């Protein structure tokens, strides 16, 4: 120990951030994206889609109770979960692509945390005023005015949170029915609980925790660094143009001043509370608001725009030497991004292909192995199979079950007349039937140890066919 002073604190309180209002290209883009993403999120469950009487008419519905996922004209069953997995892989690869090309563009524009935080800050600004007013309010005593402003802000935040959680539960059940149920208090407790949890989480993450979620909680920014290189478009400060800034020691000692007038506009608008002139840093979500703020100042001081700007690290030495930067597309099109695009497209085409070739009817065959066969009194050998028939159509279908084999076999369905092998399967359901297959006394399949057989199921209405191979066990002597 070399020091006997009081040690500095090992923990630090959050420095509150009061982002100032800003106007400009990227701010407008952010408003548009907020409108689109939140609009899609809030409105989607209310879109109707007629699927006939047996199926729900909600365009997008995750029906957990019946284990179905409806997406407009597509219906996904649990055994087709690979579609969801595929979409998640595509989402992952898409993020890789955008991150390697455009940096943390997901974080800056479309991440729900960013979008909702933006919305909550907008609400706060609308109620409490712009940056300076909010700083004053924050420092002021808890008088009547402060209570009034704070309470009305929290109230609106909770309303936003509730509609967020509300929109979420509407994806899982019929939205109009649930909406009525929620209002008259008859909805399932799970709906209220989910809404309450999501409302609180939204208010907490978007209203209170804000940038701390990105900095401390989210793993994605830490992973993103692995996808970025010198060609990735990111936000930076052209310090060779801006420095030395006004009022710095260098300027005071007579050096010519750079473009930066040290007006702090870029710092004051930043929702993450950082100074972009310190260089690209961990907290930056590349939302572009500092660019808008600085461009505004540059216009006023009659300097070219882009002192703070999106650019690639690779251009820095070129620009420093007075050269022109590469056009953006030359940064974006490079082996890495092309590879991500190819992988993304491959998965996408694979999924589309799987979607188009999938069958609306299907079956699974489970031979009964305990016992492998039964000898009947006339000496014939009987095998039993549990067959599950799947009808993915929206109406009731009649399925005929047959079996083909080199040997002569008779097929019967448990509970049906001997000659009747037609089974009715309800709309959008599966049905389990026990099927008996018989081979007469002394016939080939009875005597053989094993005989290959193939079950066929045919939808009598559409003519769709599906088959499963299995074996018939005989006495083996």
């Amino acid at each position, binding site marked *: 120990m070399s020091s006997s002073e009081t*040690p500095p604190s090992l923990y630090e309180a959050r420095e509150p951030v009061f982002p100032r209002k800003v106007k400009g290209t990227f701010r407008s883009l952010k408003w548009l994206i907020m409108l689109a993403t939140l609009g899609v999120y809030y409105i989607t469950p209310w879109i109707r889609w007629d699927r006939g009487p047996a199926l729900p008419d909600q365009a997008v519905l995750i029906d957990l109770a019946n284990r179905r996922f409806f997406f407009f004209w597509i219906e996904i069953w649990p055994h087709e979960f690979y579609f969801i997995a595929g979409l998640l892989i595509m989402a992952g690869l898409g993020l890789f692509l955008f991150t390697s090309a455009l940096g943390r563009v997901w974080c800056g524009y479309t991440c729900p945390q960013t979008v909702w935080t933006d919305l909550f800050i907008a609400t706060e600004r609308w109620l409490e005023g712009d940056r300076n007013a909010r700083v004053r309010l924050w420092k002021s005593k808890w008088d009547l005015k402060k209570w009034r402003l704070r309470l009305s802000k929290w109230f609106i935040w909770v309303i936003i949170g509730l509609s967020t959680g509300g929109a979420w539960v509407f994806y899982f059940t019929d939205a109009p029915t649930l909406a009525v149920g929620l209002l008259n208090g008859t909805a399932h407790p799970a709906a209220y609980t989910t809404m309450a949890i999501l409302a609180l989480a939204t208010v907490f993450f978007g209203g209170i925790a804000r940038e701390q979620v990105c900095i401390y909680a989210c793993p994605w920014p830490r992973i993103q660094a692995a996808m970025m290189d010198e060609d990735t478009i990111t936000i930076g400060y052209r310090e060779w143009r801006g420095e030395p800034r006004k009022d710095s020691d260098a300027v005071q000692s007579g050096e010519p001043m750079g473009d930066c007038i040290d007006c702090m506009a870029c710092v004051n608008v930043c929702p993450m509370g950082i100074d972009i002139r310190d260089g690209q840093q961990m907290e930056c979500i590349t939302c572009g608001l500092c660019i808008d703020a600085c461009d505004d100042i540059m216009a006023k001081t009659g300097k070219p725009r882009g002192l703070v700007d999106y650019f690639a690290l690779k251009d820095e030495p070129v620009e420093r030497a007075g050269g022109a930067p590469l056009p953006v597309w030359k940064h974006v099109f490079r082996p890495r991004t092309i590879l991500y695009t190819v992988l993304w497209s491959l998965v996408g085409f694979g999924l589309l292909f799987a979607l188009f070739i999938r069958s609306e009817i299907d079956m699974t065959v489970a031979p009964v192995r305990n016992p492998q066969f039964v000898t009947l009194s006339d000496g014939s050998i009987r095998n039993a199979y549990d067959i599950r028939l799947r009808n993915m159509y929206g109406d009731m279908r009649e399925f005929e079950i047959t079996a083909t084999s080199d040997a002569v076999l008779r097929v019967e369905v448990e509970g049906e007349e001997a000659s009747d092998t037609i089974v009715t399967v309800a709309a959008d359901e599966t049905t389990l039937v026990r099927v008996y297959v018989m081979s007469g006394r002394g016939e080939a399949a009875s005597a053989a140890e094993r005989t290959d057989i193939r079950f066929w199921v045919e939808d009598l209405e559409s003519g769709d066919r599906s088959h499963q191979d299995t074996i018939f066990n005989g006495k083996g002597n």
Partner: protein
Amino acid sequence: MSKKQDNKKQDEVETTGHSWDGIEEFNNPLPKWWVWCLYATIVWAILYTIAYPAWPMIKGATPGLLGYSTRAEVAEDIAAVDAANAELIAKLAAVDLTTITDDAELHGFAVNGGGAIFRANCSQCHGSGAAGTTGFPNLLDDDWLWGGTIEDIVYTVTHGVRNEQSLDSRYSEMTAFDEILTDEEITGVVNHVLAISGQDHDPAAAELGATVFYDNCAACHGDAGEGMDALGAPTLTDAIWLYGGDEATITETVRYARFGVMPAWSAEYRVGSGLDQAEINAVAAYVHQLGGGE
């Protein structure tokens, strides 16, 4: 997380003031709320161990103030299931079994419950797949010693076969012919049985055996060996043999007879471990739908 607006450079991280051999310890402070979260989890853990069973003692763990136990929860769940099924169980005990398949819900309940009862009580002899084994009938086939209608099955399960528990048990006794018939007659009757069941046999012996069969066996097994369900006398013309259909086994059966038994499963006869009417109906419904029910 505002960087102070004093143009502090990134590399000017504060140090804690600790220094060993010239190596300084940087201070990158944790956010305060993070520390409070840690304390909150500690407080939570302490309260949790007070409220719920937690600390292991010599006999069991501390019970916790809330008196929660997983065992009690399971008991509650079981009671809840029983209560939910009470109506079905009452219906099952009173149902006319010949029409049980008309009520899909009741039939499904009976078959599933009957399957569980079968595996617990019957599978030891009849096998988990109900295929039986030598001396214990296969319940999957279309041959029944005492009848294969669902009501016959209920009777057999209730009273059993050849036991002393129930006076109404299925009862019959085959004669051991070892000292009654001569060796020649036994060989003859065995060959006759081989003949009527379509197996290789000695025609001359079988011809002699036909008379012996008519005199000694037909009373129970029928003139043509077709058997009789009322007496539990097996059909001798089919391909199904409880003890085996080869010459040696049939000879053994004729000489020393067979005496297969089955317990009476009704709680009336098996006090404490028997089945009630609903359970008997369930197991009968299960056995009846295995593939051989009449």
